[in-house]
């Protein structure tokens, strides 16, 4: 009691500092003491937080300084919440430059840089990758993927050579919305890959049949794109109340419900939702904390969504 009445100057300053930190960095305060859920990259064992950040449409804001600053704030909130993987592509307009702008504004965040090569003929791949690297302003990419399998044979040769030379740490391929799954499977079976990127969510579950099991079998990490079907799922779900039992897996909103379904699949390494809003990135990052659904809960989630 006496201690409470006579706070020392040092402890008072400490309390003020803690309070100001809680106000200025609300997510940090909320997540304090909670461990972010990570998954190992199968080829190396390096761990990654299960929720990353996509940049399709959301970060393509051109030279608009106001919008660029808003994207940088999204990135700040993402890193503060423990996020690491940011994914982009030369196909996404100015997104790479905007990510570079954001990284430049933030103080050396621990980004896991994932980009793609998307050009034909494949002989132009190396030049495009170098242009992308300059846009990001990183010494090298952590992950480079062949976007939508465009000129994949030639690009994979380039990426393998870059990996051997230490110019990139991981390589992979991408597809989206269920396209060319047979080709993806064939490449996964025959080529040395660290990652495959596919579309997967509670309603688009085709990859559960063959690609996700194959990824586990071959030791390939899985990145999941379009978790909300470009917002359509969120808009559809928002008309319904979140079921009370969602609290059993610590979901506070539909975004966390949808993301926890995805990252609870044992083959999934990271999901990359995209957003332009700080409050949404914080909601998304909430899916990387606390309990995840088990198999029976996943079945319940599917049944519930299919009823809506």
């Amino acid at each position, binding site marked *: 009691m006496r201690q409470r009445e006579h706070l020392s100057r040092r402890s008072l300053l400490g309390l003020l500092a803690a309070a100001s930190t809680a106000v200025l960095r609300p997510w940090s305060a909320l997540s304090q003491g909670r461990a972010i859920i990570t998954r190992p990259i199968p080829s190396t064992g390096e761990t990654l937080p299960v929720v990353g950040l996509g940049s399709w*449409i*959301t970060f*393509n*804001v*051109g*030279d608009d300084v106001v919008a660029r600053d808003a994207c940088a704030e999204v990135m700040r909130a993402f890193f503060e919440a423990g996020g690491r993987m940011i994914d982009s592509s030369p196909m*996404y307009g*100015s997104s790479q430059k905007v990510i570079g702008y954001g990284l430049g504004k933030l103080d050396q965040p621990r980004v896991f840089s994932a980009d793609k090569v998307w050009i034909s003929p494949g002989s132009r791949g190396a030049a495009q990758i170098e242009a992308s690297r300059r846009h990001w302003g990183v010494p090298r990419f952590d992950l480079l993927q062949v976007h939508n399998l465009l000129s994949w044979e030639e690009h994979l040769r380039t990426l393998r050579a870059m990996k051997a030379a230490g110019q990139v740490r991981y390589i992979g391929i991408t597809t989206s*919305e269920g396209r060319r799954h047979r080709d993806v499977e064939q490449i996964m079976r025959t080529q040395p890959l660290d990652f495959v990127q596919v579309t997967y969510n509670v309603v688009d579950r085709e990859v559960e049949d063959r690609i996700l099991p194959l990824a586990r079998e071959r030791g390939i990490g899985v990145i999941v794109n379009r978790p909300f079907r470009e917002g359509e799922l969120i808009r559809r779900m928002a008309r319904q109340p979140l079921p009370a039992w969602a609290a059993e897996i610590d979901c506070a909103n539909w975004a966390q419900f949808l993301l926890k379904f995805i990252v609870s699949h044992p083959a999934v390494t990271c999901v990359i939702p995209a957003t332009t809003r700080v409050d949404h990135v914080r909601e998304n990052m909430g899916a990387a904390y606390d309990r995840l659904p088990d198999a029976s809960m996943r079945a319940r989630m599917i049944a519930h969504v299919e009823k809506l």
Partner: protein
Amino acid sequence: MSEWWTYSLSDFLLFSPRIYYRLFELYNAAIWPLQILALALGAAIFGLLLSGVVWRGRAIAAILAACWLWVAWAYFLQRYDTINWAASYFAVGFAAEAMLMSWTGIIRDRFGFHSGADVAGTAGRCIFLFALVVFPLIGPLAGRPWTQVEIFGVAPDPTAIATFGVLAAAHRPHWLLLVIPSIWCAISGATLWTMQSPDALVVPLAATLALVVAGWKSLARGRQASPDET
């Protein structure tokens, strides 16, 4: 692109509606007060359409060619290119239209207009007036701020529609000059449709109307020519 049939229009939309319209806001701020000059040039074209001066075809073609060239450089290459990698191709198309316009209307002096009250000429002048006066109002009426207004001569959609109006008003159709504006109106309409803009159909409808007028005029000319030919 493999499995092209699995792609939808939304797969090609690289930006959000908010950023698309912000682009016009920043563009308008950067080029101000050129919009006033553009509107004055538009008014001059309308005046020339009504006048009987012999050099009006060349003057109208020169103004339109300048507008298409300006949009190619200032809007597509300097602005739109920052959010859409296809913008440089659109710029090439707009520059090509400027060249075609110059070749047909200035060098070959093939733009002729009836000053009288023929139906096609009146329809063409109405389409032109729509592009010049009504089109800029559509955005604000749809709830977008005035700062994002799209004006003839500096923005692609009203420039294309105004060109349709001029070509519909010409006493003979210039089909080659209608190709690029038609392609652009289809692209623009598809972009706005995918963005779920309430005014998405305005540009394609105006273009369709102008093409119908040009087609009708072409048929009418054919019917007039037939008795002489037989």
